[in-house]
């Protein structure tokens, strides 16, 4: 059923694509059905087991809690030890429910967000492909299966961010997100292979029960590689900046991928491998420091942003940092806090993003400076926003409060035991908590509640408009549009009251992270503990910061640009382009003849080396294979026509004699009964000759000065070397020693008919025995065709260098340094070049 669910979601996407959903009013409902079905299936499948596990946890066995609910295995590539295996346990179930549940709400919402957009079907297709990949990712029980789906989420995320492909911002955001997450994916696959090889299995459920992985010599390497993968995916510092850039995606994608699900994939991976890898101080300090920094950077930066979505993006970064920090610890309380944090974050951040989308849709504005008084025109949306934002701020008794209490308490308990790490985490979380309150209040006050939009002192508003009392709503949202965030917020608001029931979900999930049964339970009320006091203090500090927010914003805006991750990344990217240009200048700036000379000489060197090792007499042919009369005539034809090709003055003559060379070679094939080769060679010759005639006769006459003597000598030498290369290679091949060695031809000849079902051995080799080679060849052909298409249709071909040279005097100074290369590169419009001019 697990694999079937993944396939169901994917096929639903394809069906929605074909349905043309933008023309059908019921498409929103229809799209929500498949994820809903998957949600209900997960609940019904796991309900009996979860209820049992809850009872078992209260008793003393607790075996079921950490157990498998469903496991499935499918054959894939057995020769490589690859199999598609899925397993549903507590942690996968929690993630699966979040993915499919929020997926249903987002699917419904999308239909109204993208109304009248004729690419809505395409959006659904990519959204559902993402959902399928994400479900596969959290259900996978094999590292490599997990990786395949992991990459699937990266690719679909790229497509979703770049949905508005005509906007440069969207394209840039998509590119950055993809480079970062796919780069992290490369590190991850290396880490996974090391882990799989070292532990002897790629099955995750076996790896996590294997003891002693932290004592391996390669543990640091495994850890670093996997952490890079997880940190890039989950937007941890120093990779956190791609997430705000990804906000160029349509809002449903931001709410779903870049808040509720995909960015949690890294967290999921860390949680999944927690039992195997966490028992080492490196793990703890790495997660603590990066998670802590991310938490603070995200929380502080969020306040600075005017764009609602950017603010929410940094808030998400901060929350992801919180989760990473929690995973540094091994206590039951910390792991339980992770689980609660994941669910509560999905239930408040998802709706907040959706609300931002509704506001954007209704008013056309997302800038907090220009918004005001939306509570009058969008009352329901305002309530949704208030509930969700208060939950984000961690105000009791909302779900966010439960989550914040759980995490503060787990840090505090750790600190009480005298652990330095506990104090650090506690301090960072308290400070971040204050900022959580600040930006939550900022969001609801500035957009929904305040009486009029104010132009803050010192912050110029580009349009310089007057403060408005209420942002004009030109497009009231239909009730169903608001239904999706409303539902999610309702779930989040009810959740604290149903903690006893939710515990049946939380405990097994935490047990999967711990690798052992968990006996702790979440609670709404912990009593007047020091933790609660700190929590209140943080709220008070947050409110104070909220009142002082303009000062805070000014201070943050004054920070230098060079500190921003995007800017640093762009500089690195420009550097790579510049390096590419330098490399190209030294490797491809040569003439065609020079480059060919390098290649041919490189091929000739091994032959020359071999010739020194071998007695020439050994490879020379014997008398009985000396050429007969027909072959001798052919050889003479070849030599004469080759000589004529070189010496003749007219290009037409050269082409014709080149054709004679080719046909003579074809005749050789005929004499030695290789009809397939002969046919191919002949066709190629015909095509080439005709083509050359067309091109050369119509080109302008060659008025170049005669070639320099030195160059001419070099060309002759290279030609001779290339000839010698071919000649001796054939001799080696036919020599006695080679013939004695086992040849593969026998196998081909005897197996072509019985196993290849064809009597043309050459063809059977091409399409059956060596199909992989042929596949590679036709792929090269396809790429060459695309490259040729680009080259031959580029405007540059129409206007050979003449025009670009005419411009030269204007830039004479600069061009004189590297004249030809510069003019060549100028037309490629590389970013570095563009920024320079």
């Amino acid at each position: 059923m697990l694999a079937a669910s993944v396939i169901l979601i994917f096929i639903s996407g394809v069906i929605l694509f074909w349905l043309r959903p933008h023309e059908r009013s019921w498409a929103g409902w229809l799209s929500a059905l498949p994820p809903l079905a998957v949600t209900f299936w997960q609940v019904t499948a796991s309900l009996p087991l979860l209820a049992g596990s809850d009872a078992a946890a209260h008793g003393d066995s607790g075996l079921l809690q950490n157990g498998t609910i469903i496991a499935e295995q499918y054959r894939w590539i057995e020769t490589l030890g690859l199999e598609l295996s899925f397993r549903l346990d507590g942690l996968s179930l929690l993630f699966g429910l979040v993915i499919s549940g929020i997926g249903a709400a987002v699917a419904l919402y999308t239909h109204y967000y993208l109304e009248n957009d004729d690419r809505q079907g395409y959006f659904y297709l990519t959204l559902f492909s993402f959902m399928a990949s994400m479900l596969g990712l959290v259900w996978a029980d094999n590292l490599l299966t997990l990786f395949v789906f992991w990459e699937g989420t990266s690719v679909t995320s790229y497509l979703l961010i770049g949905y508005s492909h005509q906007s440069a911002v969207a394209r840039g955001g998509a590119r950055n997100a993809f480079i970062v997450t796919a780069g992290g994916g490369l590190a991850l696959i290396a880490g996974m292979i090391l882990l799989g090889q070292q532990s002897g299995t790629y099955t995750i459920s076996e790896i996590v029960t294997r003891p002693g992985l932290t004592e391996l010599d390669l543990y640091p390497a495994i850890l670093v590689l996997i952490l890079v993968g997880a940190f890039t995916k989950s937007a941890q510092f120093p990779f956190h900046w791609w997430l705000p850039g990804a906000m160029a995606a349509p809002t449903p994608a931001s709410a779903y991928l870049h808040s509720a699900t995909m960015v949690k994939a890294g967290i999921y991976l860390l949680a999944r491998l927690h039992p195997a890898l966490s028992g080492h101080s490196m793990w703890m300090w790495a997660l603590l420091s990066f998670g802590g920094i991310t938490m603070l950077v995200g929380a502080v930066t969020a306040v600075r942003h005017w764009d609602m979505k950017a603010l929410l993006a940094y808030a998400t970064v901060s929350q992801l940092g919180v989760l990473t920090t929690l995973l540094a610890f091994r206590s039951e309380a910390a792991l339980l806090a992770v689980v609660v944090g994941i669910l509560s974050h999905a239930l408040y951040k998802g709706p907040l993003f959706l609300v931002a989308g509704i506001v954007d849709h209704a008013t056309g504005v997302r800038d907090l400076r220009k918004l005001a008084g939306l509570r009058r025109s969008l009352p329901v949306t305002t309530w949704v926003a208030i509930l969700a934002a208060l939950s984000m701020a961690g105000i009791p008794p909302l779900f966010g409060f439960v989550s914040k209490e759980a995490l503060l308490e787990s840090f505090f308990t750790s600190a009480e035991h005298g652990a330095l790490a506990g104090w650090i985490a506690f301090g960072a979380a308290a400070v971040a908590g204050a900022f959580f309150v600040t930006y939550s209040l900022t969001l609801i006050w500035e957009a929904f509640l305040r009486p009029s939009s104010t132009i803050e002192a010192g912050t110029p508003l580009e349009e310089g408009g007057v403060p408005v009392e209420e942002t004009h709503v030109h497009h009231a949202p239909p009730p169903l549009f608001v239904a999706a965030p409303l539902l999610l917020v309702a779930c989040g608001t009810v959740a604290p009251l149903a903690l006893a029931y939710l515990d049946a979900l939380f405990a097994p999930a935490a047990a999967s992270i711990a690798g052992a049964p968990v006996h702790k339970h979440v609670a709404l009320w912990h009593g007047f503990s020091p933790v609660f006091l700190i929590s209140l203090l943080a709220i008070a500090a947050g409110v104070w910061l909220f009142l002082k927010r303009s000062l805070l914003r000014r201070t943050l805006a004054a920070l230098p640009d060079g500190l921003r991750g995007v800017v640093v990344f762009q500089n690195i990217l420009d550097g790579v382009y510049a390096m590419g240009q330098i490399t190209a200048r030294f490797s491809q700036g040569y003439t065609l003849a020079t480059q060919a000379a390098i290649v041919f000489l490189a091929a000739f060197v091994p032959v020359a080396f071999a010739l020194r090792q071998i007695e020439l007499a050994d490879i020379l042919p014997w008398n009985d294979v000396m050429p007969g009369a027909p072959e001798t005539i052919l050889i003479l034809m070849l030599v004469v026509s080759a000589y004529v090709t070189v010496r003749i003055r007219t290009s037409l003559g050269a082409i014709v004699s080149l054709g004679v060379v080719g046909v003579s070679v074809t005749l050789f094939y005929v004499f030695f009964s290789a009809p397939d080769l002969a046919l191919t060679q002949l066709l190629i010759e015909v095509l080439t000759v005709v083509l050359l005639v067309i091109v050369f006769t119509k080109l302008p006459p060659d008025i170049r000065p005669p070639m320099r003597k030195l160059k001419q000598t070099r060309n002759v030498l290279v030609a001779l070397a290339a000839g010698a290369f071919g000649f001796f290679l054939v001799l080696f091949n036919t020599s006695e020693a080679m013939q004695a060695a086992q040849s593969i031809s026998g196998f081909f000849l005897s197996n072509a008919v019985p196993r290849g079902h064809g009597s043309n051995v050459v063809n059977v080799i091409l399409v059956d025995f060596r199909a992989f080679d042929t596949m590679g060849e036709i792929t090269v052909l396809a790429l060459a065709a695309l490259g040729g298409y680009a080259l031959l249709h580029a405007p540059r071909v129409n206007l050979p260098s003449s025009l670009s040279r005419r411009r030269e005097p204007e830039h004479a100074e600069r061009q004189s340094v590297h004249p030809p290369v510069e003019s060549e590169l100028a037309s490629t419009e590389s970013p570095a070049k563009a920024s320079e001019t």
Partner: protein
Amino acid sequence: MPELYLRLLNRILTPVLLLLALFLLIRGHNLPGGGFIAGLMAASAFQLQILSRGHVIVRRTIGPYLNSSIGLGLALAVLAGITGLLDGSFFQGVWFSLSLPLLGYLKLGTPIIFDLGVFLVVVSFATSYLLGLSRVSATGERLRDDSASPVLSDDSSLDSPDLRVETGRGANS
């Protein structure tokens, strides 16, 4: 304007060449032929078309299909490989035997589909280049008529002979 005899030849030869290509493709597995040769044969038919009717007309008729049929060919080849996967490993040949009433005994297999993919890629590749080069050569002709020389004079300001970019003949071929 293409000569009359060329147009006449084209009328007769193009269908013959295309049929020959099909023939070579079908019999390829047992007798000389196959996707590669058939692809080149079909491309030479299109070459004849370009010569006799001009590249503009040919581009208009078959140009739009070229890039997509390259993709189709690759997809067919991969599909043949994946079908083999079901039977054991990638590119494992899978054969079906059909006994048809009129045609008699017919053997079909994934290598045949693979060969069809090869054929599509080769014919589209070659035709794409033929069309592109014909276009460029037409442009070259126009340039010569404009008597605007696209050729660089041997500039003595070049400090390193290795960095020189060859133009004229070399750069366009």
